[in-house]
């Protein structure tokens, strides 16, 4: 069962990463694609908690780091999504389940992940990361992710509940 669970989670991440770099790269807003992988991580973290969120975030981040056409230092998205997945998972018990909480969590997560990624670039001296560019990209990324939340999060929650029925279920919006 746990193998199946891991396989389903892996497939979900794989699908998300491929959609993000293959499909949504044709639907960019000013070059910004929606972080589908991040949405899957946040969705899973909201259902399964911080540890699961961190683990799935690491896997999704590493896939983003290694999948073409990525040319940045490997591990940067992994770092960003581990932190994001963990923090998003903490929201699970602290709040009532509501669409508003989910949307706010996604917005905060998108902000965190993009910022951590940009900061790691600044620390490594990546010439592509400039403050102006980060300021341009951040709000678009957050809004685009929020816009896709109603499509992605319920689907992720449904899959998570299907593969691992939890004792304390809640109705997802």
């Amino acid at each position, binding site marked *: 069962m746990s193998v199946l669970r891991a396989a389903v989670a892996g497939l979900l991440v794989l699908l998300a*990463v*491929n959609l*993000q*770099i*293959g*499909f*949504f*790269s*044709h*639907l*960019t*807003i*000013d*070059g*910004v*694609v929606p*972080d589908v992988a991040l949405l899957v991580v946040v969705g899973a973290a909201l259902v399964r*908690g*911080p*540890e699961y969120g*961190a*683990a799935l*975030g*690491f896997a999704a*981040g590493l*896939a983003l*780091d*290694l*999948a*073409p*056409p*990525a*040319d*940045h*230092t*490997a*591990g*940067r998205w*992994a*770092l960003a999504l*581990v*932190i994001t*997945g*963990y923090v998003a998972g903490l929201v699970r*018990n602290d709040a009532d389940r509501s669409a508003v909480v989910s949307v706010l969590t996604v917005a905060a997560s998108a902000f965190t992940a*993009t910022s951590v*990624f940009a900061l*790691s*670039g600044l620390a*490594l001296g*990546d*010439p*592509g990361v*400039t403050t102006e*560019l*980060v300021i*341009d*990209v951040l709000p*678009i*990324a957050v809004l685009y992710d929020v816009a896709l939340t109603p499509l992605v999060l319920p689907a992720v929650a449904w899959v998570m509940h299907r593969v691992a029925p939890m004792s304390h279920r809640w109705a997802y919006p």
Partner: protein
Amino acid sequence: MKSHTRGGARSRKVPLLPVLLVLVALGVITVDAAMDDSPAEPLRGVVGDVFGPVQSGLSSAARPLNAVGEFFTTVPGLRDENAALRAANAQLKAQLDTAGIDADRLAGLEIMRAVTRDAGLDVVAASVVGVGPAQSFSRTVTIDVGTVDGVTLDMTVLNADGLVGRVVRADRSTASVLLLIDADSVVGGRLGSSMELGFLAGNGDLSDQGRLSLTTIDSSVTAAVGDAVVTWGSRNGAPYLSGVPVGSVESVQSSPRDTSTVAIVAPFVDFSSLDQVFVVVGSAPERAATQAEGGLG
């Protein structure tokens, strides 16, 4: 790994697994950044072989949607017009764009065939199937040709307008191209009129505002506005062939403080609408030489 018990009373201390994963991620960054022969490279190859074909497939499914994206970016300008007109406009635009794609590609292919025949270059045609997101702050694209088509590291990539970039990764059926406009990209350039040499650096902006800055080696040289810039070329044509058109000088900025002048070059290639590109896999003289060697052996 189970550092705390799941269920009713969740402990407030930070559990082991996330901390461990953060450390692993930092380790991966350090190793990949510090080592020339990074262990991440073979991994990238494996992931590229798996993801590349999927990307190509998804991309051909999404290609007709390009027009939809363009529609969204032009919405602010259309706000005054009524909703019906906008919808009709988008529909027509989508039809026009998809109808035009094949004709555009054919025309591009014809131009390139003529150019490369004259220059004695061997090229393979490729489509852009993936674009690196702006969130990654690097300007790279995936193309649908790879090592099976003869594409290897550092090959020059061009299209009918001029220089596009160079291959930074080649997997089995896909390759990653670092665009000329990336802030990390530096290309040797030559001013068309004076034959003076310099270095072209990108500003990382994919839109129409994307510009290259040319710093000439001889600081006394001043580029003229409108002057064409071509590539200077590298040894054995890798990473860049010589004489490929890059752009034209748009303005010249001089700083009296350090006596250097920087020419701002507008690239010929429109990086926001890259579709069909060509990878130079060899040149005719080179091929003749290899054939001769083969004949002797």
